[in-house]
């Protein structure tokens, strides 16, 4: 696989989306607290896997701000793949191929969407990974007859599609193509899920025009999995009559703009201490929440740990 990532013809659509949503945001004074948040993060996770995944993204980005393209390229390498592609959607609608590690890989993504069949669309529909170790097998031929044949003609045997999503917030599908048949090793599978998490935050940030440093993305990608963050996203979606994806995006933008952790922002939204420029016509009262553990205090103590 080539190291460089080739942006395909559709790259303009990402650029346009960014321009449309570009909210200029200055790096806040509170920026200095960032390294602390990163330390909290490293405390919680599988150091080896995360370090490996983020280290690989860092290597591909060559010290620059990590992009979707860097993460897709790093994932393809980690999975010993012929290449990988990313298709994106606005709020769970039609998927559109936006980038791939090479043009022939992008053609495979395009082929799936032209035919209206394939693992990527299925992964998006069921919002779960679709793993096909052998496109030449009977099951794949029955499930996606035209795509299996077309990909086979291009020398592809294994296809592995991972939703880039969190619950109802669906931003796209990461698809990895391999020339050799065979299942992914468990380590590779878990790496791919970690790459999909990274892509999720990079995609949200891309829509906001936030250009993040890697440590920032790491922290956000990890906290993006916590219950409070998703409760807050749902609450904000109802308050402002926006999609859960857009709600997560606003939480993330607020965290970035204020220098607070995503978790802290979420806890404040749920406690009714923080309102993110929405109408407060209904449910303006904070939800009653008997909480002997005081999440705010927890957060502080974690950062002191």
């Amino acid at each position: 696989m080539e190291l460089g990532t080739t942006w395909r013809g559709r790259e303009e659509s990402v650029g346009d989306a960014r321009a449309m949503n570009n909210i200029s945001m200055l790096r806040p004074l509170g920026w200095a607290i960032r390294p602390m948040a990163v330390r909290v993060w490293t405390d919680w996770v599988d150091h080896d896997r995360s370090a490996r995944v983020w280290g690989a993204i860092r290597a591909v980005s060559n010290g620059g701000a990590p992009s979707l393209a860097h993460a897709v390229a790093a994932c393809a390498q980690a999975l010993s793949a012929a290449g990988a592609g990313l298709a994106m959607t606005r709020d769970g609608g039609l998927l559109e191929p936006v980038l791939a590690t090479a043009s022939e890989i992008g053609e495979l993504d395009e082929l799936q969407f032209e035919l209206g069949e394939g693992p990527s669309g299925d992964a998006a529909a069921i919002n779960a990974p679709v793993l096909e170790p052998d496109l030449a097998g009977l099951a794949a031929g029955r499930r996606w007859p035209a795509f299996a044949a077309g990909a086979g003609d291009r020398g592809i045997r294994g296809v592995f599609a991972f939703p880039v999503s969190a619950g109802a917030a669906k931003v796209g599908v990461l698809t990895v193509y391999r020339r050799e048949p065979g299942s992914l090793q468990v380590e590779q599978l878990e790496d791919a899920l970690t790459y999909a998490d990274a892509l999720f935050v990079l995609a949200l940030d891309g829509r906001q025009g936030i250009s993040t440093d890697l440590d920032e993305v790491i922290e956000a990608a990890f906290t993006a999995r916590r219950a409070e963050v998703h409760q807050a996203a749902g609450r904000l979606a109802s308050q402002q009559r926006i999609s859960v994806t857009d709600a997560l995006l606003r939480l993330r933008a607020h965290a970035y703009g204020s220098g607070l952790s995503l978790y802290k922002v979420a806890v404040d939204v749920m406690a009714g201490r923080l309102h993110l420029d929405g109408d407060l016509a209904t449910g303006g009262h904070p939800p009653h929440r008997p909480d002997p553990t005081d999440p705010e205090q927890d957060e502080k103590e974690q950062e002191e740990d």
Partner: protein
Amino acid sequence: MSASDRRVREVFIELSDTLVDDFDVIEFLDRLAAHCSELLGVSACGILLADHHGALNLVAASTEQARLVELTQLQTRQGPCFEAFTTGHPVQHADLRNARARWPRFAAAAVGGGYLSVQALPMRLRDTVLGAVNLFSATTGELDADTITLGQALADAATIGIVHQRALARQEVVTEQLQNALNSRILIEQAKGFLSHSLDIDVDEAFALMRSYARANNRRLTDVADDIVQARLTLTRAPDRA
């Protein structure tokens, strides 16, 4: 043993009946947490699963109080569930008032929540530990051997439910199913937050409301949650019996 054999049999039949195609994993684990409390004679039960980052996530809790105590454990990375998960062995503490040296934050939160003893059981699948089941009691003392055996059987039922493969599931299938359970939980949290605003209720009432709606209308909990966050379904505060 705190439950009649007949009741135990009924529960296992009910749980295996739930394991049909297209079953809802969060609904299953939620029922299982409630059954654990009932059959084992404990005050509360929480179920935690590991994600691909190696971090534990709370996927079901029989009571709000247990949920809060479990969250303390997740935030501090210390407590019986963490130990059961990392060692793969059961962990017991008969009097949490004496556990402050071992798990300072967890012991304080548990005692503050009214729990004096705890038992954590690993959720094992062959040589992998997927997560752990935590049993909380309002009284001190160890659970007897029969109760622990039954508790481990329920923990194993939870594992089977998540993996959703009766026979030898390949590890990649396990990872896939685990991912499905964790992602379903995220969707439920989003819907809880959504309802907390639209109905001006707390997140636990929101969960109870979704659960009773799903049961009354014979729908999957995650489908109900999805409809709520997409604004396709509006619930009212009183449980909908339509």
